[in-house]
C-alpha cells in the first residue's frame, strides 16, 4: 500500500523537481569552477620548454634508454634481459674502428667495469658495462664489421645482451629521460672545450659532427681523448 496520500505525493514531486532544477543551475558554476585550472605556465616558460625539448644537440639520446656516463646505453627488453651498446656520442667520437672486442657468451660483466674494447690503429680503448650480469648474446655482425656508417647504434648496432639479476639496482645508477639529455648537454660542453680551430666545419659552426672526431682533434692521442669521455 502506498504510504503517501495525494497532496503529500505532489509536494514530494515538487521538491524533486526543485532539486533537479537546482542541480542544473548549480552545475553551471560548478563546472566553470572545476574546468578553469588556475595554474597555467607563463608563456615564456612554455616556449622555452618546447624549445629545449627540440634540442638534442647533435647526438641522439632516445628517451626510452638508460645511459651510463661512460657512453654505454642499456635497454630493458622484458624480464631482466638488457640490450647494451655504445651510444651515438661514442660512435661519433671514435668513428670507424677495426674491431670491437666483445666478451664471450656466458661471461660475467659488472656495472662500471670493462664491458668491451674498441680497437683501431694498434690502440685499444675500453668501454664500461652499464649493468651487472651474464652475457647471453653478442652481436657478432656489429663486432665483425664495426664500421659505424649507416649503422643505427641503438638498433642493429647493439653489442651485448646481458641477463641482469640486479636490474633494479643497476638502473638506479643510470641516466634516462630529461636527466640523460642534460648530461649529454654537459658532455657537449666538455667536447667544445677540447675543440681545436683546425677541426673544420663542425657543429659549433652549424655543421654536423664528423665521425671520428677524436682522431681529428688529436690524431696521435685520440685514444686518450676517448678514454677521458669513456671514463676508462
Amino acid at each position: 500500500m502506498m504510504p503517501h496520500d495525494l497532496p503529500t505525493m505532489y509536494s514530494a514531486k515538487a521538491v524533486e523537481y526543485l532539486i533537479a532544477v537546482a542541480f542544473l543551475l548549480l552545475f553551471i558554476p560548478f563546472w566553470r569552477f572545476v574546468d578553469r585550472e588556475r595554474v597555467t605556465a607563463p608563456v615564456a616558460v612554455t616556449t622555452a620548454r618546447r624549445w629545449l625539448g627540440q634540442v638534442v644537440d647533435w647526438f641522439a639520446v632516445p628517451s626510452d634508454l638508460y645511459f651510463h656516463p661512460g657512453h654505454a646505453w642499456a635497454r630493458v627488453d622484458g624480464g631482466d634481459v638488457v640490450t647494451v651498446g655504445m651510444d651515438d656520442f661514442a660512435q661519433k667520437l671514435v668513428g670507424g674502428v677495426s674491431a670491437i672486442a666483445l666478451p664471450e657468451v656466458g661471461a660475467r660483466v659488472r656495472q662500471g667495469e670493462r664491458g668491451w674494447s674498441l680497437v683501431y690503429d694498434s690502440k685499444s680503448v675500453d668501454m664500461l658495462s652499464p649493468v651487472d650480469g651474464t652475457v647471453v648474446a653478442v652481436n657478432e655482425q656489429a663486432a665483425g664489421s664495426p664500421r659505424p656508417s649507416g649503422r643505427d647504434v641503438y638498433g642493429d648496432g647493439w653489442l651485448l645482451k646481458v641477463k641482469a639479476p640486479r636490474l633494479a639496482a643497476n638502473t638506479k645508477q643510470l641516466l634516462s629521460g630529461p636527466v640523460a639529455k642534460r648530461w649529454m648537454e654537459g658532455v657537449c660542453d666538455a667536447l667544445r672545450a677540447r675543440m681545436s680551430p683546425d677541426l673544420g666545419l663542425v657543429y659549433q659552426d652549424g655543421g654536423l659532427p664528423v665521425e671520428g672526431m677524436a682522431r681529428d682533434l688529436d690524431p696521435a692521442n685520440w685514444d686518450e681523448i676517448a678514454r677521458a669521455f669513456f671514463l676508462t
Partner: protein
Amino acid sequence: MNETVPSARVALSWPREKLLMGLSPREYLSTLVTPFNFVAGLILLVGLPVIAYRFAFGLGAATNLTQVNPWGLWIGLDVLSGVALAAGGYVLACTVHIFGLKQYYPVLRPAILTGLLGYFFVVIGLMVDLGRPWRIPYPVIYSYGVTSVMFLVAWHVFLYLTVQFVEFCPAVLEWLGWSQVRRWALKLTIAATAFGVILSTLHQSALGALFLMAPTKLHPLWYSPFLPIFFFISSIIAGLSMVIVESMLSHKIFHDQVGPGEDVDLDAITLGLGKAASVVLFTYFFLKLLGVADGGHWHLLTTSLGHWFLVEMLVFVLLPTFLFAHGVREGSATFVRGTAVLTVVGIVVNRLNVSLVAFNWNAAERYIPSWMEIVTSITIIAIGLLTFRWVVNRMPVLREYREDQGVREFTGERRAR
C-alpha cells in the same frame, strides 16, 4: 632486417626465471624479509587458521550471523565494497576503449588487474560467507533460479570475472612469452571490453537491487527505489578514486618496474580522473537528495541515524566533491590523491551503512561482527594485496611489453631487430 644472433642457452630453470625473477631460491628468500611481509605474515598466521576454523566448525561457531542478520561484515566489506572498489577496471576500459581517451591507457592495465583481483577475492569472500560454499556454481550450471536477483548477481560476477581474465590475458601471455597466442588474445580483448562494460553497469546496479527486496529492513534514508542507480553511479566514483589511489601506490612501490621513456605524466592522469570524480560526485549528491525527497523522510535527518546519514552525505560525498574540484583547479595531484583516499573510505562507509548499519536498524537484535569475521576480512584483503604485488613483479603490468624483444632470449634462439 632480421639477423640470427648466436647465443647460449642460459642455465636458468623455468621456475627460477618466471617465478623467482631470475634469483636463486636463497636470494629470493632474502628479498622477502621486509616489514610489509612481516605484517602480512602475521596476518596470515592468525587469519588462515581462523578461515580453516570457519570451514571446520561452520558459520555459527565463527560468526555472529543469525537468521535475523544473515549478512554481515563479509558481505558488506568483502563483497559489496570489494565489487564497488573493483569498478576501476570497467571505468577505465570504458574511458580508453569506448570514449577513446587514450591518454589514460597507462593506468588501464593496473586498473584491470585491480578489478580482476577485486572480483576474484569477492568470490573468495562469498565462499567464506556461504553456508554451503561448494554449491557456488549452482546458479550457473545446475539450478538457475531465474526469478531471483541472486541469479543476476551470480551470472554477472561469473561472466565479468571471465571477461576480466580475458582482458588481462595479454599480460599473462606476455609473461609466458607466448606471443602467437597473445595476438589472438588481444583481438578477444576488444570484444571482452565492450561486454565487460555492459556487464558492469548491470551488476553494480544489481547489488543495489538486492536491497529493494528488503524495504522494511533498510532504514528509510538509505532505502530508495533508486538504489540500483545509486550503486551504479557510486561505483563510477569508487572506480575513479581507486585508480587514483592504486596508481599512486603502484608508482611509489613498483617504481623500478617503469622503464625510461615509459614515465607517464601520472599527475595529468590523476587530475583528469579527479575532475571526472568531482563531477560524478556532484551529480551523485543531488541524486541522493532526490532519494530522500522521494521518500519524504526529511524529518528522519534529525534522528541519530539521520545524523550518520548526514555525515555520509556531507563528509564523504559533498566534501570530496569540492576537494577534488579544488585540487584540479589548483593543479595539485597530491591534493586529488588525498581526496581519492577519503572517497574510497566514503564508498566503504556507504556499502557498510546499507548492508550493516542501516540494515535491520529497527530490529531488537543488532549485529556486531565477531573478531573472527574481522580477522577473516583482513586476511582476504591481505592475500589480495600480496597477489597484486606478485603479479606486478612478474608480468608487464606497469612496464611496457615489446613483442620483438620479449623474453625469448632465455630459450637460446633469439632474433635481433
